[in-house]
């Protein structure tokens, strides 16, 4: 029987002590609130007294960045990556071709060019393992101690997953041609074509038996396919044209603007003729 009353007494006592604690937290809310209101207060701001400056950090794992001018294409980082999110292509100058690949900031002569250096940040697991083997220290996580090299990049959220693939290479098509690797360029373009076709695949749509809609010129039309550029016979013109076209298609621009851009691009090159321009305009 006494246990019965002790239990009731215990319950009342501990309940009151617990409630007094929560009330204290309610009362002292100004000092105790620990929330960091993220989009308004970002990490290095002094409001949040976590006690240390971001210069004190060893490293901040925010986003991988490559100083591509320093990259010698040794592929060490690609090999170190456990999830294969780094993709590097390199081209060595062919025999007998005199091509200057440039120098890094450490005065190392580059032996090859890097036409592709993509990092898929949607797959990256921020393990930092690619950073250590780099002989030129050109791949690193941005921010923190690397702040002088590159600002911290908190949120690089994108609407499409593919936009998280960051391309660092700055090698132009002309350079690839100069180095004597036309075949690489062709292969790449055919791949882009393939992807582009894949993007436009709609699956097995049910057959609609109604009459085809009249091809009225619509203001915001997006009907042209990259295949239509096949009317350009000259390869030297076709490649840059397709590139511009593809870029413009990504941006979701009108057909008219697409064709205008293509014309503007190829009119600078040799082999351009007014007939070709007329042909392109006829596409619309």
């Amino acid at each position, binding site marked *: 029987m006494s246990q019965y009353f002790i239990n009731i007494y215990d319950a009342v006592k501990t*309940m009151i002590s*617990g409630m007094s604690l929560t009330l204290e937290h309610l009362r002292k*809310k100004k000092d105790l609130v620990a929330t960091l209101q993220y989009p308004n207060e970002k990490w290095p701001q002094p409001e949040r007294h976590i006690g240390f400056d971001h210069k004190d950090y060893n490293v901040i794992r925010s986003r991988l960045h490559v100083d591509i001018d320093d990259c010698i294409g040794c592929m060490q980082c690609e090999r170190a990556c456990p999830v294969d999110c780094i993709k590097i292509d390199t081209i060595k100058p062919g025999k007998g071709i005199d091509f200057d690949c440039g120098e890094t900031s450490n005065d190392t002569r580059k032996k090859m060019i890097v036409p592709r250096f993509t990092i898929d940040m949607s797959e990256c697991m921020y393990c930092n393992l690619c950073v250590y083997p780099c002989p030129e220290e050109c791949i690193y996580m941005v921010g923190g101690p690397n702040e002088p090299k590159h600002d911290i990049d908190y949120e690089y959220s994108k609407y499409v997953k593919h936009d998280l693939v960051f391309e660092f290479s700055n090698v132009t098509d002309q350079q690839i041609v100069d180095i004597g690797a036309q075949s690489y360029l062709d292969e790449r373009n055919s791949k882009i074509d393939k992807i582009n076709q894949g993007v436009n695949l709609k699956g097995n749509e049910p057959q609609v038996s109604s009459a085809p809609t009249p091809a009225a010129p619509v203001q915001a039309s997006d009907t042209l396919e990259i295949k239509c550029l096949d009317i350009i016979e000259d390869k030297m013109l076709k490649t840059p044209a397709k590139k511009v076209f593809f870029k413009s298609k990504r941006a979701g621009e009108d057909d008219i603007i697409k064709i205008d851009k293509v014309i503007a691009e190829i009119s600078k090159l040799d082999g351009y003729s007014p007939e070709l321009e007329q042909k392109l305009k006829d596409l619309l």
Partner: protein
Amino acid sequence: MTSIVDSILSAISFINIDINILLIFAIVIPGLVLFILMALNVMISVYFERKVAAFMQDRLGPMEVGIFGFKGGKKFWGGIGQIFADTVKLLTKEDIMPANADKVLMLVSPFIIVAGALLTFIGIPFSDGLIVSDFNIGILYIIAMSSVGVIGVILAGWSSNNKWSLYGAMRSAAQIISYEIPIGLNLLLIVIVCGSLQVSDIVQWQADNRWFIFHSPFTFVAFFIFFISVVAETNRTPFDIPEAESELVAGWMTEFSGFKWSIFFMSEYANMLIVSLVASFVFLGGWLSPFTIFNVFPDSWLILDGFYIGIFWLLIKAIFLVFVMMWFRWTFPRLRVDQLMYICWKVFIPFSLANLFFVTIWELIAGSIS
């Protein structure tokens, strides 16, 4: 004693039509007002609860949604626009009905619960005379109506065709029916002392003598038993086993969504307000100001009492009790179902019965002394 129905009836009696049609008007108008009151109550209470919880947990709570570009910063009203955002969200959400559910019962059950809450409001005063209908059996009516909701809960749990829901409904039924008893016993104690079931009589008794909570040691204990029992009856933590989110997902509300779910929410918070109002006018002096606690001051001092300021006093008391309920919720763990029954049957009911016995003796002695 007047009530709202009487006043409205006398106010519109100049229209020369049948008294029965006028009566319909006189009943519908307070009904609408009460419904709006319930809706307002849930909007404000949810915000209040979220903020109280946040500050107790060292968080800030809703902060982003302001009104008209006004944001209070890290203040209590920091995200006051959340009230409207929540309402719009709840009312426009998709209403999902499980394929194998009993569709009719599932549709009906939220409205039975909300009807129970609305019906209880008829007997609840907001100030002296501000009551829809002042029955002579007011307290009995409140006890009866507050358990209508359990029918809706069982229907909701059964019709969802979900094991978790059924568990929740069965637990809820057992819990509400059990806790009716200590609630009834403690209200009976008050009725014995003041000799009336009518709400206005109970408050008038307190105005003449003293608040019931300080009337005798036994009524003091009775208040706490009553309050904890009503917390249990409204399914709030630490007695929230019917909807225990870590065990039963959401209990009997698991399969409900959108508007139906917001109706549940509305009735839950309405019940909280109802029980707080009942506790205030039965034990805490209703619409009387704090000067009347022991009734020692002469009548000329009681300038803080009156019809309009009475609303304020009653609501202050009720809101404080609602806050205490929230305070419970954000402090305590949840009880197990057998412990819940233990507390009811082995602690509260013996104590209430003992209370009932001693208070009658107390009254006999006090009556013979005076």
